[in-house]
């Protein structure tokens, strides 16, 4: 019997045909491959958070193979000599084992911790980008809310995570957390007792935190991230204004191959940076802290950075206890306000902000074009106010270290923080507002009068004037369209090419800071792509 010749080259085609016969994927796949993404460096910040999350999942799974979530008391007998023979919880002992007795365990632990810090940092910076550029406006309010929740769920993930080693520092954090829960009026003692199964610390909290940290919270994060990305995909990304960009189109690159390659490369870079940090910079050296003992603490006990602002608010809070003289009397401790009420207010404000702004401006239209922060001074001012508020709190969270290093009175630091928290945010609002107006003014001025040339001309009557290069024809007029206005002559190509290159000059003119946009050289293309209204 003659065997049919096997054609290697036909295999992919046959397989593809077979798959499409069964699943009809050709059309949706083409749509996916073709999807257009706008590009700008500031759109990559959220991706750092996404990539950090992937690293967290990978390294976290590794850690679970060796970690023992139990508070059973054991005598440490591992490689780290200074703690040998010390009674400690099994959780702390197994964390030490990951550090010293699992080959490569320390770098995995440090990658996990650094990735967690980066995850939260990227979320915050991404959130600032979205806020200051107005990307949260209709139709993207839901995604803004999901993003705000992601911060707080990430916060919980971080807190439960760094509590797990059960070392001296994290135990103190847990103690404070129990104090915070206790401070909630009416239900505080019941809540704390239920979570810790009795009095602090009890014997079960680590096991409960463990399942929350490895299953419940990551599950929630995964669901929220999925929804977040799904909405970005469905609603299409926002874009900056610019030539050819309208509220009704997306100008950018198709997703495959170039855009996807850049994403993949960026992921590897983030991964690599986390690996470098994990190898070179020590983070959370739990072996130096010793096991958690309720009576031991050292100065400079600071939580991870994203918790520090709440530590600061707790430090700044005056000792205002509210006593309610009913029956035997009840109290609302001062701890309640900065640690329970403040985060609640912050969540509420961030979640509601898109709706408040829309209502205030009576603006219920769809917005797919971003705004430069200078064009919306009130919002930018509010943002600056929030950032300042946050910074004062975060710095106050480290006020003992600052007081120590700079030889300042600790009490003066506390009072400075209290006063600063009230004075600086309004000041930041005012300054930001004025800066925004100034920048706007300058943009308009350049559009109307042209770019400064640096050429000073003396007039016959002795006066000196600077020559400006107008951006429009003599009788023309230019309108501001919400994008960068060239302000230097070499942005107009008027000067010779900037000379770049280290060893030898590369003759290449400096590029204007605009992301890819359709060229406007030929009339036909121009009419094709500028359909629709300009914002």
């Amino acid at each position, binding site marked *: 019997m003659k065997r049919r010749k096997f054609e290697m080259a036909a295999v992919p085609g046959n397989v593809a045909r077979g798959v499409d016969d069964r699943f009809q994927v050709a059309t949706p796949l*083409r749509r996916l491959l*073709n999807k*257009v993404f706008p590009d700008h460096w500031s759109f990559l910040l959220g991706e750092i958070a996404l990539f950090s999350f992937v690293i967290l999942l990978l390294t976290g799974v590794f850690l679970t193979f060796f970690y023992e979530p139990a508070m059973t008391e054991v005598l440490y007998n591992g*490689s*780290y000599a*200074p703690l040998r023979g010390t009674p400690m919880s099994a959780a702390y002992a197994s964390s030490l084992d990951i550090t*010293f*007795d699992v*080959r490569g365990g*320390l770098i995995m632990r440090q990658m996990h911790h650094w990735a967690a810090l980066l995850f939260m940092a990227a979320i915050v910076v991404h959130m600032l980008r979205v806020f200051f550029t107005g990307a949260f406006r209709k139709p993207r309010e839901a995604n803004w809310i999901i993003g705000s929740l992601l911060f707080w769920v990430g916060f919980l993930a971080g807190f439960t995570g760094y509590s797990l080693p059960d070392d001296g520092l994290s135990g103190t954090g847990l*103690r404070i957390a*129990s*104090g915070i829960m206790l401070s909630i*009026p009416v*239900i505080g*003692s019941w809540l*704390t007792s*239920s979570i810790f199964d009795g*009095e*602090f610390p009890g014997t079960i909290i680590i096991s409960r935190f463990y399942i929350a940290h490895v299953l419940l919270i990551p599950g929630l994060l995964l669901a929220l991230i999925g929804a977040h990305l799904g909405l970005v995909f469905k609603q*299409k990304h926002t874009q900056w204004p610019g030539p*050819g960009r309208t*509220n*009704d189109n*997306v*100008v950018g*690159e*198709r997703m495959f*191959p*170039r855009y996807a*390659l*850049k994403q993949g*490369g960026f992921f*590897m*870079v983030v*991964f*690599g*940076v986390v690996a*470098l940090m994990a*190898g070179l910079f020590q983070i959370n050296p739990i072996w130096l802290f010793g096991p958690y003992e309720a*009576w*031991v603490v050292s100065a400079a*006990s600071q939580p991870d950075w994203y918790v520090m602002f709440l530590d600061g608010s707790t*430090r700044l809070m005056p*000792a205002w*206890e509210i006593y309610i003289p009913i029956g*035997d*009397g*009840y*109290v609302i*401790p*001062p*701890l309640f306000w900065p640690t329970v009420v403040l985060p609640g207010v912050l969540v509420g404000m961030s979640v509601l902000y898109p709706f408040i702004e829309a209502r205030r401006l009576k603006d219920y239209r*769809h917005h797919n074009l971003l705004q430069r922060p200078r064009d919306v001074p009130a919002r930018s001012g509010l943002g600056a106010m929030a950032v300042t508020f946050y910074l004062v709190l975060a710095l106050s969270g480290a006020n003992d270290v600052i007081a120590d290093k700079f030889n300042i009175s*600790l009490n003066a630091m*506390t009072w400075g923080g209290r006063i600063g928290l009230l004075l600086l945010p309004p000041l930041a609002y005012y300054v930001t507002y004025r800066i925004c107006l100034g920048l706007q003014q300058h943009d308009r001025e350049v559009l109307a009068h042209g770019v400064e040339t640096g050429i000073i001309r003396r007039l016959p009557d002795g006066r000196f004037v600077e020559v400006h290069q107008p951006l429009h024809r003599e009788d023309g007029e230019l309108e501001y369209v919400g994008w960068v206005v060239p302000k230097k002559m070499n942005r107009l190509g008027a000067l010779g090419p900037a000379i770049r290159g280290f060893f030898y000059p590369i003759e290449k003119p400096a590029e204007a800071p605009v992301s*890819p946009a359709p*060229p406007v050289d030929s009339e036909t*293309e121009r009419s094709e*792509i500028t359909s629709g209204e300009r914002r």
Partner: protein
Amino acid sequence: MTTTHPGNAGGDQPVDLDDPDLSRFDIVRAGAREDDIEIVHYEPQVVPGSKAERRLSRTVALFFLLTGASATAFLAIYIWWPWEYELGYGGDKWYTPLLGVTLGVSLLGIGFGILTWGKKLLPKEVSVQDRHEGEVNERDRTVTAQTMLYMADELGVKRRPLLGVSLLAGLAPVGAVAAAPLVGGLISQPHKNNQMFTTGFAPTEGGQKVRLVREDGRPIRPADISAGGQITVFPGIDHGVSNKYADSPALLIHLRDADAQEAREANVRIGHDDFMWGNFAAYSKICTHAGCPASLYEQQTNRLLCPCHQSQFLITDNAKPIFGPASRRLPQLPIVVDDEGYFVATSDYTETVGPDFWERP
């Protein structure tokens, strides 16, 4: 085979896929148009076969080879480098940094290789896609709304109100059933055995007073602490020095004469006449603010500072909070020296130890 483009945005001619003159890019462009995408600008960045292309290819290849070398180095270090912990400055201290550098470089190598490939070697393009979100299909809205309303009609909840009411009445307990094991399993009475108001210093059931002991369990004589000194003390009971009695630890302070006199007078003012023994006073170490150990004692000012949130307590004034967020003084442990010359607690703390809560008073 011919594809047609009904309602195409560009309104261009259908593309004949069998046309031999058609390039692959033409098909791609035609396909993109079907998704309302116009590739308006497509420009190769390097001329095929040019010097620039060869140079860039070499760069990308170099990055990938760097990755390979670095990853190999990682494996070699992982396997052969001495990694087991030793005291002092051994080679093992370099294990993690070396792993980090080799892993980091290998990942950065892939990253930059891919980025260079994508950003420099692939053609630059600008595509424009329509969003289509402004076009609301009122017809679809109406049809969907009517379909859903019709579903409600079919169910007939409006005509048969009994069904709705009984369904709700039936489902509510089912919801409670789902929550019951969770709430019932987790809930724990906070005042079991009066646990929030007692510590390990409470006299034993036989009325035996509890000794103050050090961290190693040895009892303490007055002579053990010099004037101005202080020591953390624990209840001398089973597991007294452990987190099981996290609320018990106290700070035993030997005050100097003048300070002791002041502290005694302050004690008398609030009816704690015999809480001190000689110049010795013991105060709970657990901060009344958030529960950290308030353990930084400043001899000169007789202040006790909690390092977590900087609450400061004045020992010579019944450990009253004088700065920071704490609103309640540290509970004092009444102490005395027993027949054998060791410190004992005459009773438990008379105030609640630890962070404040709603029903504390």
